[in-house]
């Protein structure tokens, strides 16, 4: 079970990242739960200055951009 967290206050890019991540996880067929972290102080605890960001099992994998679907798959694998 992987824990996927999307960090961002809810701007369009964060939503895009959330959708892409969900699709990628489904394609890979892994078990996962997805959580959107929108609270700024929670986001800061990840050490992230630029949103959107993606964390897998608490590890920050992408910061300040929406990666391509292929890149996301690599991050989830």
């Amino acid at each position, binding site marked *: 079970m992987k824990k996927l967290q999307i960090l961002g206050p809810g701007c369009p890019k964060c939503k895009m990242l959330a959708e892409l991540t969900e699709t990628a996880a489904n394609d890979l067929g892994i078990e996962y739960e997805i959580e959107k972290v929108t609270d700024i102080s929670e986001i800061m605890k990840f*050490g992230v*200055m630029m*949103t959107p960001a993606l964390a897998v099992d608490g590890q920050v994998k992408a910061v300040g951009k929406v990666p391509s679907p292929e890149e996301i798959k690599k991050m989830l694998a």
Partner: protein
Amino acid sequence: MSWKTELKILAALVAIFLVAYALPLGNPKIQQAIYEAFRLLQWYARNHTLACVVPALFIAGAIITFLSKASVMRYLGPKSNPVAAYSVAAVSGCVLAVCSCSVLPMFAGIYQLGAGLGPASAFLYSGPAINVLAIFLSARVLGLSIGAGRVIGAVTFAVVIGLLMAAIFRKTEKTKIEAALQMPEPEKPPRHISKTALYLGCMVLFLVFSDWFNPGNVIVKTNDGRQFNAVVIHETKDNVRVQLEEDLGSEKTGDKIMLSKDEIAGMQERKTWVLAVYHIRWYLAGLCGMAVVIMAWRWFERDEIREWMLNTWQFTKLLVPLLFGGVFVVGFVSVLLPEKQVANWVGDNSLRSNLVASIIGTFWYFATLTEIPITQALMKLGMHNGPVLALLLAGPALSLPNILVIRKVMGNQKTLVFIILVVVMSTIVGMLFGTFWGQIT
């Protein structure tokens, strides 16, 4: 399907229904307001869309795609040089904050993880005001002096506010969060920075030329033999409205008068370099545009171009409905606003007018870019240039929803001091501007 979005759609439908049901169409004031809403929308569509908004969207997309954000963030990190941190924080808004929704997380990041309170405050003050679209649209719609005043005022006073914040709270402990800073990995730039700079520079020049305006300086000759210098403000089929540039009988310099076309024997454009550029603007813009196309073709990968187009499209989806929706609503509401009240509150360059404008700007929420049609409408109703700038400076930096988030990040005391600083500084800048450039429209 989430309940929240569905409820929002329902609320929007109900709102449209209520307006459609209850709108008193028979009322002449309402009829005039509807006409004005469409007139203003058409004016934006004809005069500002192709030459200003569209190129600016492409530039915003290019900035996000081709400029490495990581290199800017390095100057705002925890071990940055303080002088560099303040100056970068004050100007980086034009690179980093193209969409206002990214301003708050970055502010929190700079404060808690990076360079600290001073640079974070500087970033928060200037960031939302100096993105490409805001700069060009305010210069174009509200006048060159207000556009320039906005940029210079925002950047300069961002540094002042940042330094004051840092000085006032120098003794409070650093409440930094102990977290390993996650920076975007430094990407290897695929080409030399000068190529990217030249590319962006050509695009900005394209916008500057395509958006070049006719200053309207003319020599007017009337049928009764008078001759005087004036600036054309507005021309209709039968009348011309001009602002005088020299005293004319009982009218003073700066007065606006209406002339019937029957009175005018001839109007001659005064030869200035601004006008000379105006006549060849499309050739100059065309050259820059061709240069951009050639550079894009020779230097950039297919994927990068695709990403650029994608980012441009994202901004378009985000900003165009806001801008044009805002213009429409402002056009409607501006007719219903009582002109006397506006002139009464913000019609001169007094301390009170500037203070009122700053306070309203501080608490009122302006959706990105809508501050421009709003101030434009207020100016038409008689708002003075000084308070206009005060409103434009305080407006995008703070709003009530914004303040609530900032309070959570840095606490009540610091938030309160920041609000006071924003109000005071914006008032001062507005008054200074109004004193020196109040007459120029």
